């Protein structure tokens, strides 16, 4: 008996001391499902190389904002969060985020961090978010189907007429092959991939400072007509009408879609998860020429008052290293450090170069009520796109959305 106690005591001492030596801390980090390809890889790489650890939770895209809000209110928020950059202003305004201005400015490469991210990460001259992952919207096409349809597989559509014509030719292959795909009931997907068509043609849906909704434009009307005509000709699978974003990527990855607007993330996801799909990447074109892109992605933000700040900084430092940037790029995020972007992309798929260029010239709308206006499944933008792509009353739907969006903007708390 005494022997046993002695052994137990010894075990306790050994265990205790080994814990004492390590003194590793674990920080909890959340990411939305868009990052489910690259985020686990970079967390693994970090955990292998450091004593401090990061525990990652992947949250569905549509749930992460309400979930984080609820967790923050209940005091169980993660230490840091890879947050859709669009939300940084409203989260910072709510006093939810740690001010990281000093640390950010002490980074030697601060000036070469993605400007779209830093702009949305800054609120009242203080920095609350730093770029983590970057994603630019692009157009992707299936080269195998293009070849079968008698099209040049190396040449993607460069204007709206070519999109419609190519989609029709691919669609003519018949069977379960369809010409075009988009998520017709997903506000977030369409702000990302549909508005660039409008931007590239000279229009916009919000004024520069986000204070006016500007839906009543010939450019928006024209882009709507492009999608409507393809729906009418049955070039789009019936499921698109009710797709809330679940098939945004999966539809093209199944290999029977000719053309689909998508994002840079698709390059990494297709290469690693669907290596058999032969696809091309090009810019989202304007009506006759030109192109545009939505510069999106995530800002890395720190929950106010976290005790794991050191771990979080160490993790972000690692993500900004050449090794980190290369891992991110390889699995679907564009580099966010301009000074080493070329090196990070050097050995990777050349299609990334198109996406990196799209990112560099991409646009990001700014609004503190972005979720209510655009991303909410029941917001005016989501309702409008579904009505105008599939419904009968296009003008009524646009007018209704214009009015609702403006009233949401006007009622927003003036911060």
């Amino acid at each position: 008996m005494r022997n046993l106690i002695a052994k137990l005591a010894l075990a306790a001492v050994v265990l205790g001391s080994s814990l004492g030596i390590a003194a590793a801390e674990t920080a909890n980090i959340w990411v939305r499902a868009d990052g489910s390809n690259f985020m686990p890889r970079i967390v693994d790489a970090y955990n292998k190389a450091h004593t401090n650890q990061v525990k990652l939770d992947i949250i569905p895209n549509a749930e992460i904002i309400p979930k984080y809000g609820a967790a923050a209110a209940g005091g169980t928020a993660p230490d840091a969060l890879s947050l859709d950059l669009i939300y940084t202003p409203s989260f910072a305004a709510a006093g939810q985020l740690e001010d990281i201005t000093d640390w950010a400015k002490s980074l030697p490469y601060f000036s070469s961090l993605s400007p779209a991210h830093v702009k949305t990460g800054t609120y009242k001259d203080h920095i609350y978010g730093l770029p983590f992952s970057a994603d630019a919207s692009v157009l992707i096409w299936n080269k195998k189907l293009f070849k079968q349809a008698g099209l040049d597989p190396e040449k993607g559509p460069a204007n709206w007429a070519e999109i419609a014509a190519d989609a029709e030719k691919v669609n003519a292959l018949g069977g379960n092959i369809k010409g075009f795909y988009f998520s017709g009931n997903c506000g977030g997907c369409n702000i990302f991939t549909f508005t660039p068509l409008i931007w590239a043609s000279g229009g916009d849906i919000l004024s520069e400072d986000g204070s006016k909704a500007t839906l009543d434009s010939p450019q928006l009307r024209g882009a709507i007509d492009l999608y409507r005509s393809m729906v009418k000709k049955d070039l789009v699978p019936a499921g698109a009408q009710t797709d809330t974003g679940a098939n945004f990527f999966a539809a093209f990855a199944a290999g029977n879609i000719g053309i689909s607007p998508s994002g840079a993330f698709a390059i990494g996801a297709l290469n690693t998860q669907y290596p058999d799909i032969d696809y091309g990447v090009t810019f989202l074109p304007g009506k006759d020429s030109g192109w545009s892109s939505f510069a999106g992605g995530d800002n890395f933000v720190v929950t106010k008052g976290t005790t794991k700040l050191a771990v979080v900084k160490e993790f972000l430092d690692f993500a900004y290293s050449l090794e980190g940037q290369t891992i991110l790029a390889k699995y679907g995020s564009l580099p966010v450090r301009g000074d080493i972007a070329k090196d990070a992309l050097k050995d990777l798929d050349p299609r990334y170069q198109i996406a990196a260029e799209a990112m560099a010239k991409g646009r990001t709308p700014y609004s503190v009520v972005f979720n209510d206006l655009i991303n909410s499944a029941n917001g005016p933008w989501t309702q409008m796109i579904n009505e105008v792509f599939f419904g009968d009353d296009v003008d009524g739907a646009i007018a209704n959305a214009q009015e609702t969006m403006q009233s949401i903007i006007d009622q927003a708390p003036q911060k």
Partner: protein
Amino acid sequence: MTTIAAATAPLRARKLAGRRQWIGLLYVAPAVALVVVFFLIPLGMTAWMSLHNWPLMGEHFYIGLGNYVAILRDTRFWNALRFTAYYTVIVTIAIFVVAFPLALFVERPRPLTNLYRTMFFMPAVVGFASASLLWSWLLNVDSGLFSPAAYDLGLIDRKFNLLATFQPAFWSIIAMVVWKVAGFTMIILMAGLQSIPQDLQEAAVIDGAGPFARFRAITLPLMRRTLALALILSVAGSILAFDQFYIILRGGPRNQTLTAVYWIFNQSFVSFKLGYGAALSMVLLVVLVALSLVQLWLLRKPEGLD
């Protein structure tokens, strides 16, 4: 000595009674504690929050009845409430239309009765969220069951997206809820049917009453309480409907299936207006209590009848 004993006896009795009361209180204490912790305190908290501008993140401050004034102008909430009422009426009728014949069918012992009862009741043990996920797959136009099956069997020329327009989407939800809930209502109604004394029915038969007359004059009046219970459960459940519309339809097509609870959820956790959501909840609570009182009054025991 004896007088003292006689005098203390009632006192002791009183003491005993008092102690018994205390013991009684002790017995109900766990139940009371549950009600206080999980109902009364949250209710008070909700009422308190409804008087504040209370964002999910950041500082909150008192605004009196401001939220309630805003509700008066919130047309989308009233639309949601109107849709909820419409849904409640339709789904309650549908549930009873299906559950009552089922109850009559499984009430009396016959071969395989237990099998039928179990079969009809089974969907009731599935949670609403998992049932919704199951049906959202069944209803999917590209990879589900109904539309692809009808297409493959040659019943339709091109796949029909059941969830894309209001009527088919709405009736798909009704079908799903009836499938899920009718079995439970059936069990309640069956219990009511079984509690009707058989001799009443036999007496009526001897008096020459037909099956419809017996149903109307004996079965229905004697099932008043059971019907009240089933009705209140169904109405209250339907007014609080959320899961199926959130998971299968996301309030679509085009926000036409936003229920009151869905709107409260959106205001609280999408727009982060917790205080406003709390005020909406209070309004819904008042509506629900009023409706339940009306139902109890309608189905009260008629005078002079035991």
